[in-house]
């Protein structure tokens, strides 16, 4: 059963632990600028959301790559770049709607989440559960469950007293 990364922005506390571990494991240094995942903060740092490659079924990056360097790893399911064929042109970076591909500022080559060979470190170190790695078949249901909990809490808050379950 293949797995997918699932992101719950509402659970993210903006601690950037995912970034620091990602850069450490992939580059040997602690440097968010070289991380495959980045916690984007907006509105004066109030809102935050981890952004990374979504491992699309039909990746735009692969379609636009002029040297056909982007393929799916059949074992991990990760969308990977063949560094031998990569031109470093950055067209995949421009095309991705999520910012999933990026040019590493040090090497100039394309970097993207590689799912850590099937055990993503970002999900492991996110104790808040903002990034989780789950079986594909549970993917949608988990998101529904999370939304349902929010909805039920809201309904409960407006329900007249005494009507609580």
């Amino acid at each position, binding site marked *: 059963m293949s797995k997918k990364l699932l992101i719950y922005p509402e659970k*993210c506390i*903006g*601690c950037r632990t995912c970034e620091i*571990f990602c850069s*450490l494991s992939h580059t040997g240094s602690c*440097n968010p600028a070289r991380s495959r995942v980045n916690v984007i903060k907006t509105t*004066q740092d*109030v809102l935050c959301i981890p952004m990374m490659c979504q491992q699309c079924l039909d990746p735009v990056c692969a379609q636009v790559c002029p040297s056909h360097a982007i393929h799916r790893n059949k074992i991990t399911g990760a969308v990977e770049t063949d560094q031998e064929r990569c031109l470093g042109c950055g067209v995949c970076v421009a095309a991705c709607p999520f910012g999933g591909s990026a040019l590493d500022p040090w090497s100039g080559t394309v970097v993207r989440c590689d799912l850590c060979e099937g055990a993503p470190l970002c999900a492991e170190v996110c104790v808040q559960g903002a990034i989780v790695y789950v079986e594909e078949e549970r993917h949608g249901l988990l998101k529904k469950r999370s939304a349902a909990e929010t909805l039920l809490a809201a309904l409960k808050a407006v329900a007249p007293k005494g009507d609580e379950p």
Partner: protein
Amino acid sequence: VRSSACGEKGALLRVDLTHATHSTESVEAYVDDYVGGRGVGTKILWDELPPGTDPLGPDSILIFNNGPLSGTAAPASGRLDVSAKSPLNNFHAVTNLGGYWGVELRHAGYLHLLITGAREEPGYLWIHNDRVEVRDASHLWGLDTYETTVQLRRELGDEDTQVLSIGPAGENLVLFSNIVTNMGEAAGRFGIGAVMGSKKLKAIAVRGTRGVALAQPRRFLELARDAHRRLWESPGFKERMKQPGYAGMFGDKFASSAAFGNYEDGYWERFAHLEVEEFFSKRLVRSAGCHACFLQCKSLVHIPTIGYGLSGCTAFSSFVGTVWNEDLTTMWEAIILANRYGLDFLQTAGTIALLMELYEKGIITPAQTDGIPMIKGSRDAILGIIHKIGRREGVGSILADGIRGAAEALDSRAPEYVVEVKGLFPHGYAFPALEGASLMQAVGVGDPFPTYGTSTEQAVSVPGPWKNLLTEAKELFGSDEAYLPGNYSPAKVRMVIASEHGTRVPDMLGVCIKPYKVAEPFPLEDLVALYEAATGRALTSAQLYSAAERLVNLERLFDAREGLTREDDRLPQRFFKPIAGGVHQGKALDAEKMEEMKDVYYQTRGWDPQTGLPTQEKLRELGLEKLARVHSSRRRGRR
């Protein structure tokens, strides 16, 4: 330029504002004795700041200190130490802040940032990796701290820039003004905002993409993973996660075991009934985490028309319990207003609390407070005085110079109501019932609120299942008296000394004490192993504690060089009077026994009980004998 690890050339960035120049240098020479962070920062301050320097003059200096673990994957490695001479009490300002600013500085390639000199016109410092510029800030002068961040990020065109700034309070040299980050984190208590203000330095914006290189990256990764996991899996953390960041400071337990107002009472019935949880949970945007920290000790709260901000326990207790305020909307207004001005919450609230007591007792009239009746809990009084102090306007210009001077200026009867330790209004703990915490407060640098053993003493002082803690006290300090209240035993002194060293260990390494405290026992071995993997240097926990002891002594020498004697280790009169209500009702410190306990403390530390200063013998043991010759003369900086 590749990243600079601990001790490498370029670990310290020196910026001279007078000549608009900068340079980098190594801190290698300090690392063996002082590890990093607060340790190295204090030594640099000792070396570079001549005794008697006016903290608000052009010769004063300001140092931002990352530790060897700052900005790495080590848990909670985002705490930055800031060192200077305090304009509030003319001693060593020991303060720190969380969030991301210090981490960004580390990722730009710097462990330490040393600011010297002063500008004639307002300026701000822009650090982007190895590009360092002092730029004009005349258009920013007068803006509050939030506005400054927004404006600078817009100007610099990078939302990921981390900004540290002063507000109008720092510009107006309020002696308890803070330096505030974009997230609302502040380095406070000692008036270092005024130090920046006196240098006409409005802000420091940093962007760093060089990162931190590690001596043994693979090993560091595995150690950091394990350290995080051990903290999450600790029972203390699981318990903590059941509550949001603002919990633990409301309800009957808090209402009956804290200090209220100007330390007038130990219980406030109305406080116990405040609907704090409902207020915060409705307005919570999210829990907030500092760099690589999962603890969520702060909550990001939004109230329309007032604004966004971080709620922590000091902000809350300051603008509720200290100023007798029952209206939580007023509390939020006060928090945001003080942060925008860049004012210290607790010192501001303590000043207001004093005025409220003086007004209630008929010692001052509204005519002395610019027409504001200082009625307890009054919104107009709370917000009005914040504005006055922040702008140094009317009575605010007197209040801005510190609590004791203000009392003396207001009325000859007022000084006896002043509650301060070395010029600082203490945190709202029930000190008269806590002998250990009171000792630490008396002899400490600034106001060390209860940590390690002294926080356990506080826990034990109220009913609860504390049996195992008393066993721990016996093992660590030889007697359960160390934690039990109601005694002045040598075991308690040993516990205080261990706590003083314990707080300095994370400050030297560059991590925040909070998540590590949640775990039992304190995972010191994890930190030592992380240090070794990060720096490639060998270190033992014994060496770390020995460095902590050296640091305590150096800090004491610094203050002695500025004029400190045993006389300054004085507690407020109110700590020796019975607490009016709550679980500690009737408890009071015994003045004579406290003095005897201080004797034991000085002797145990190897200090002279007469002077309260380190003996030659102790300094020789710590390798500090060369520093000893200069600490005898009594000097003061300002006024």
